[in-house]
């Protein structure tokens, strides 16, 4: 039945709302996972979204004869279920307890993780079904559908990021559910078989009722194991300030009775206690503390008992840069106490300085705000890339790996802790400047050795003469000079260490080796460093921008030995977060096979009705793998360029959808063979130069960088949007019964691809993953549908 112009527009508005809500929900899930579990799980969420979308495609293809006649009723029905499942999936997943810290000891968290994966795929199944129905509807022009799809997706991503500045993530669930139900009403009003008004009113009422659900039902809750949840059990704990940002939920907390007293590395014989501190929490995790002055005369006397004070006690240090300043307030206070005239503190939590300034009491305010302290937002290497300043000290606290499957420092990309990142910082030291980095002392010291290996590579050799280490029972402070330490300087540092019973470790040839740590340090800077690193039981090769996973220590070589030691105090040494990623890949493959491949394989279809299996598996599988390899690589590489994984994911996913949509709309103008070769060339060029290009453009303001990122997604995504629809069109003509196969194989490859991409990147780097993507497209060129057609015709 024909549709009027107004109905046509209303339908497109409905599609716009469905696709916008779906992408918003995808990004919101990353934020909610960060909030609940401390990690954005971007690759897993992209994977589960594709599982839902792919399954919808397969189901529609298999049951098209039964479903398509009822298309007009299905549009509002699936939009309605989409809305319900947005809220329902969250409520259901919350009801399945997932405590990642029990992964060491119990199978239940692994099962819970797989259940969460499956549950969150449902909303995407329904949104995917809506889009798939529309794409197969002869009443709508494909070009307009793609336009509504991409506009909706882009608008959804942009709106969500803006809303998250004002509204906590969990409070976005009800509005998203409501928007999806509104889409259902619009769909039913647009189509000829329109539903009665009472039904529409009922649907809207259900959407409105989402807002009335008990707050506890849609609140992610604070895991009882999070720092803040435990602290709140102490009577008198009060929240001084709270603020919502897209990156984190911030809270400033005071504990009057049993104050926070963070003082890593405090000398055992220190006569001064650390002063009470306010706790800065992001998403319920302790991010840093703000020591409060106790007495006017000696507000922070304990600083002299900390190893970092060695940095300031030896020489006048005027200009100081502190990376992640609220994670190491002792550096800021030490610099102030020793008369620094210019202190720049960087922070990734952009809203934090202003929020703290408003919340702090008058006596503390002077220490943290006003001259000589100023704050710069973003990664330290991005901050220094935009200035010509030279610093006497650049310091930070190396946030340690939790070793847990989730957590602020589980295996994520850390671009400040790569060879290129450290090199950028060192290049902004003055001639006598020092890079001072403190970290927890571990046994074995794999984290310190990996940092030193990265530092050695960043310094272009000669590091042995430029590095000294102060060790306390709990911490190590690495001090790397821009130039080699002079003998008197070294002697003074040694005396400082001796007076506080700290270890003094140096890698200088000929110096005494005081401990096993000293031996390891000597070897990491020695001539046999490469073989030492290669044979070490943990992965301590330098982190690079290409493999920016500083906190990946897992090696398959020693996994067996460490797993054996699990019950004997060795559980802490097994990197469960790496294994959780492998497990997620396993879930994705299992569910992908069960939902995408099995239903198609079980259909009774004559062999001669299908295209050659090997060719279609290779062609559609290569497209699925290749596309997501590229998208995930871009998400990770743009995390450095845009400064935050959420902003990167939002920009890249929306841009890829947009450009690929435009490409697929224009695909009929291009020859498939040439398109595939152009993609191979573009990806090879990007693999060769994207990293360097981004490094050069790092100094641009953020809005310009965001626009550049969206533009850079264009060349590959525009062409990558063509091969799949072009081949499907070909199949429709030659082997219509092979279409479900194509959907299934492509869907399966797309589901495993995001998780595989990140695991591969940890081992071979993102450049290699991009080259693998190019190889996938080369394979697709080799097995392109023209060959399939000619095979059949020749049979």
């Amino acid at each position, binding site marked *: 039945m024909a549709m009027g112009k107004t109905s046509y527009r209303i339908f497109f508005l409905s599609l716009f709302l469905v696709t916008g809500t779906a992408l918003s929900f995808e990004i919101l899930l990353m934020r909610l996972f960060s909030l609940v579990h401390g990690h954005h799980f971007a690759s897993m969420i992209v994977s589960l979204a594709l599982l839902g979308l792919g399954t919808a495609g397969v189901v529609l293809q298999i049951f098209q004869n039964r479903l398509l006649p009822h298309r007009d009723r299905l549009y509002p029905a699936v939009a309605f279920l989409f809305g319900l499942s947005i809220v329902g999936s969250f409520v259901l997943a919350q009801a399945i307890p997932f405590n990642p810290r029990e992964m060491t000891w119990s199978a239940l968290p692994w099962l819970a993780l797989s259940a969460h994966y499956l549950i969150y795929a449902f909303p995407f199944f329904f949104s995917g079904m809506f889009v798939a129905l529309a794409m197969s509807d002869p009443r709508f022009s494909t070009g307009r559908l793609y336009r509504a799809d991409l506009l909706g997706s882009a608008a959804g991503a942009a709106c969500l990021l803006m809303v998250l500045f004002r509204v906590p993530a969990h409070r976005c669930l009800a509005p998203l559910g409501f928007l999806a139900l509104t889409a259902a009403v619009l769909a039913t009003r647009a189509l000829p078989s329109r539903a009665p008004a009472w039904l529409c009113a009922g649907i809207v009422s259900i959407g409105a009722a989402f807002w009335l659900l008990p707050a506890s039902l849609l609140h992610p809750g604070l895991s009882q194991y999070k720092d803040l949840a*435990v602290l709140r059990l102490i009577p008198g704990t009060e929240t001084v300030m709270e603020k919502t940002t897209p990156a984190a939920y911030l809270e400033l907390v005071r504990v009057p009775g049993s104050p926070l007293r963070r003082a890593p590395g405090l000398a055992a014989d220190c006569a001064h206690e650390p002063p009470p501190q306010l706790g800065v929490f992001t998403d319920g995790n302790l991010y840093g503390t703000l020591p409060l002055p106790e007495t006017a005369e000696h507000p922070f006397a304990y600083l002299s008992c900390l190893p970092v004070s060695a940095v300031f006690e030896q020489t006048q240090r005027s200009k100081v840069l502190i990376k992640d300043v609220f994670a190491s307030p002792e550096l800021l206070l030490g610099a102030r106490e020793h008369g620094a005239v210019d202190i720049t503190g960087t922070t990734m939590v952009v809203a934090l300085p202003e929020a703290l300034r408003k919340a702090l009491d008058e006596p503390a305010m002077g220490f943290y705000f006003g001259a000589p302290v100023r704050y710069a937002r973003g990664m330290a290497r991005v901050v220094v890339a935009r200035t010509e300043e030279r610093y006497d000290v650049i310091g930070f606290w190396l946030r340690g790996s939790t*070793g847990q499957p989730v957590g602020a420092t589980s295996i994520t990309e850390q671009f400040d802790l790569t060879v290129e990142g450290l090199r950028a910082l060192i290049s902004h030291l003055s001639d006598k400047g020092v890079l001072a980095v403190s970290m*927890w002392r571990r046994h074995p010291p794999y984290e310190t050795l990996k940092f030193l290996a990265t530092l050695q590579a960043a310094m272009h050799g000669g590091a042995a003469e430029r590095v000294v280490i102060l060790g306390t029972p709990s911490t190590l402070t690495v001090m790397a000079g821009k130039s080699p330490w002079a003998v008197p300087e070294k002697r003074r540092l040694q005396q400082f260490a001796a007076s506080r019973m700290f270890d003094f470790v140096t890698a200088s040839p000929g110096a005494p080796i005081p401990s096993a740590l000293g031996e390891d340090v000597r070897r990491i800077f020695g001539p046999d460093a490469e073989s030492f690193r290669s044979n070490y039981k943990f992965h301590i090769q330098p982190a690079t921008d290409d493999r920016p996973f500083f906190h990946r220590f897992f090696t398959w070589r020693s996994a067996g030995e460490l797993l054996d030691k699990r019950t004997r105090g060795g559980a802490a040494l097994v990197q469960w977060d790496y294994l959780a990623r492998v497990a997620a890949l396993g879930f994705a493959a299992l569910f992908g096979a069960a939902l995408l491949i099995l239903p198609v394989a079980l259909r009774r279809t004559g062999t001669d009705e299908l295209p050659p299996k090997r060719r279609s598996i290779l062609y559609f599988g290569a497209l699925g793998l290749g596309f997501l390899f590229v998208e995930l690589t871009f998400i990770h590489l743009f995390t450095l360029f845009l400064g935050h994984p959420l902003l990167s994911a939002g920009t890249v996913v929306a841009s890829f959808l947009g450009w690929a949509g435009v490409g697929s709309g224009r695909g009929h103008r291009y020859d498939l063979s040439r398109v595939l070769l152009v993609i191979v060339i573009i990806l090879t060029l990007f693999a060769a130069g994207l990293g360097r290009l981004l490094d050069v453009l790092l100094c641009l303001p953020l809005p310009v960088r965001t626009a550049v990122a969206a533009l850079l997604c264009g060349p590959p995504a525009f062409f990558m949007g063509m091969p799949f629809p072009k081949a499907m069109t070909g199949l429709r003509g030659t082997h219509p019964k092979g279409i479900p196969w194509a959907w299934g194989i492509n869907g399966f490859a797309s589901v495993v691809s995001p998780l595989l991409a990140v695991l591969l990147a940890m081992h071979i780097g993102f450049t290699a993953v991009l080259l693998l993507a190019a190889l996938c497209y080369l394979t697709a060129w080799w097995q392109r549908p023209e060959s399939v057609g000619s095979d059949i015709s020749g049979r």
Partner: protein
Amino acid sequence: MKKGTHHRLYLLLRIGLLAWSLVPMPASAGDSYARQQEAMIREIRKDVERTVDYIGKDRLDPRVMEAMADVPRHRFVPERLRSIAYENRPLPIGHGQTISQPYIVALMTDLLHTKPGDVVLEVGTGSGYQAAVLSALVERVYTMEIIPPLAESAEKRLRALGYDNVTALQGDGYYGLEAIAPFDAIVVTAAATHIPPPLIRQLKPGGVMIIPVGGPFMTQELIRLTKNEEGQTRSEHILPVVFVPLTGGH
């Protein structure tokens, strides 16, 4: 197939078997707690033998093992977890806290080198299990817990089970117990960012302190601090562990 591939397949198989072994199996009706406790003791003995490189000995003090065999661990875990109370693993006890793995409890107790007349301070009572183990070995145990509901339930539990030489108190363990100090040994069963100076001051010359040091919810280092007769301290790393934080964020 390459050797490396074989190795990975073998590892994946092992991880699969490990995952299967992680599924909690309820104890059968005939399986008494006593039998499970015996099995736990055997497990600890085996683990000690296999960690000789870390701890420098192949067996723990027999007195410690006797205490471990006497204390009914199932009474210190939530009722729903009693069937797995004697497995060599930590268990949640509520409020974000855990009861430590039996091997770690035995090891920490052994490292204290306690004698029958000693007075010991424990910081981080939790369910009271560590205090109960210590009570059989020393004259008196003082144990402190900062979380009020945990402190209260541990105090009741210890009293009900007849551990009369244990005094359970609610308070901030960072400052120890100035009124009772000095102590022959101090055991901290919660993670701290540094060794609290007040606790060092409250340790007798010749005394021993065992404390996990490191960031919250990450791998910490179990450290043994000894104070010689002149009052000088010396610390040594024992092994990496994971403890919940010494609440209060110290």
